[in-house]
């Protein structure tokens, strides 16, 4: 073993360069891991390098290719594992974005539903009608998703919670557009089908995410993350619908706004909702990098 220390004391220039580069590359690991094992990682790489150097340049090249691949293979999962708090960030972002989106969509509904110009505007642009309905329905689904996040965080992943959420979704649908059942049954059926479709899509997304996370996380944690993903799907649809609706409405020139029938949209909840939904998109992007979705540490693998 003394051989390695003696070798390192007379390390040639190329050795220093490669090892210096490796020391820099160790910053790919999270700080806690680097503080605990960084010096040892470097020492181990140095030992391997010294032995390879005694054989041939080809052996050195092969060694560093293997070390580079190993670095990438191990640094990303370790960084992901170190950022488990990202789940909290995503849950909070989902809740903030969800509350704002629900508020924005209901605001949209209150502004436009009873307005006499709405029918004419919707008649002239089917996109307005579709985006309006999509924003409203996705806000309802997102609302159920937010309830799911809170319920799973409070009570854990129990089947009873899922049943209560299913009943809640039905009640939300009936309260949201159940009045159409008597006045316009066909509209009710189409809206209910869209609501059910989006709900099932959200449930599927949540189920997939929770299932993936369950391998290396607690049931409660997986369920909360799954609920975040489900609510996130609805919120992304909501963001898309609100954005489309706002663009189609064109608040500067559209008669609905030009005639002063509806208060100006500058800085109203609609726009705030859009911004926060976009922030949600960014947080989900961050989630892909930071959340425990892909990471399984050695101990977690072992303790399956």
């Amino acid at each position: 073993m003394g051989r390695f220390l003696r070798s390192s004391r007379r390390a040639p220039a190329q050795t220093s360069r490669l090892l210096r580069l490796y020391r820099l590359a160790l910053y790919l690991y999270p700080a806690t891991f680097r503080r605990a094992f960084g010096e040892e990682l470097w020492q181990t790489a140095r030992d391997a390098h010294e032995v390879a150097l005694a054989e041939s340049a080809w052996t050195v090249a092969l060694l560093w290719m293997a070390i580079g691949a190993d670095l990438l293979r191990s640094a990303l999962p370790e960084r992901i594992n170190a950022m488990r708090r990202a789940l909290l960030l995503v849950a909070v972002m989902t809740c903030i974005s969800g509350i704002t989106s629900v508020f924005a969509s209901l605001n949209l509904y209150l502004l436009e539903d009873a307005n006499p110009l709405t029918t004419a505007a919707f008649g002239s642009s089917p996109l307005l009608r579709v985006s309006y309905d999509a924003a409203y329905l996705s806000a309802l689904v997102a609302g159920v998703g937010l309830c799911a996040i809170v319920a799973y965080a409070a009570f854990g992943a129990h089947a009873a919670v899922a049943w209560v959420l299913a009943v809640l979704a039905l009640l939300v649908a009936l309260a949201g557009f159940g009045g159409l059942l008597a006045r316009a049954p066909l509209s009710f059926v189409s809206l209910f089908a869209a609501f059910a479709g989006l709900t099932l899509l959200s449930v599927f997304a949540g189920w997939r995410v929770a299932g993936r996370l369950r391998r290396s996380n607690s049931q409660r944690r997986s369920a909360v993350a799954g609920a975040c993903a489900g609510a996130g799907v609805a919120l992304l649809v909501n963001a898309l619908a609100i954005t489309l609706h706002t663009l189609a409405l064109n608040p500067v020139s559209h008669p609905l706004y030009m005639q002063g029938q509806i208060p100006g949209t500058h800085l109203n909840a609609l726009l705030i909702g859009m911004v926060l939904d976009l922030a949600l998109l960014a947080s989900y992007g961050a989630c892909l990098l930071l959340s425990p979705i892909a990471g399984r540490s050695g101990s977690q693998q072992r303790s399956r």
Partner: protein
Amino acid sequence: MAPIQPDTGNQPDPETMPPLPPAAFHILLTLGMGERHGYAIMQEVKRLSDGRVRLGPGTLYRMLKGLLDDGLIAESDARPDPAHDDERRRYYRLTDLGQRVVRAEIRRLARLVTYAQAMPGWQSGQLSGGLPASQEGW
């Protein structure tokens, strides 16, 4: 080398911890032979597995971190003689729990091998000629 001391406190049941990932099992087996530092573990694992299990530094220390967290290994208090080795090196040793988990894993693997060898067509004498005809599609 410092003798391995039995650990105290509430410990998980070693029988429930297997199956171990191959790399973790090799590391534990290596440390069962004595205290070692990271590079020595890498070399010994490679030798023990006839080169089939090769651990890079990152993978090795991720595994060591997990084994430390689970109490299967511990950092050794003993430090090498500075005249013969880098005194900054950390040496690892198998804990009492780690020993019991390794034994449990060995028993599990032995049972599996016994079971496999008792199956028709899988006796050790017949394995050298390749897979049984019924398994050739694997």
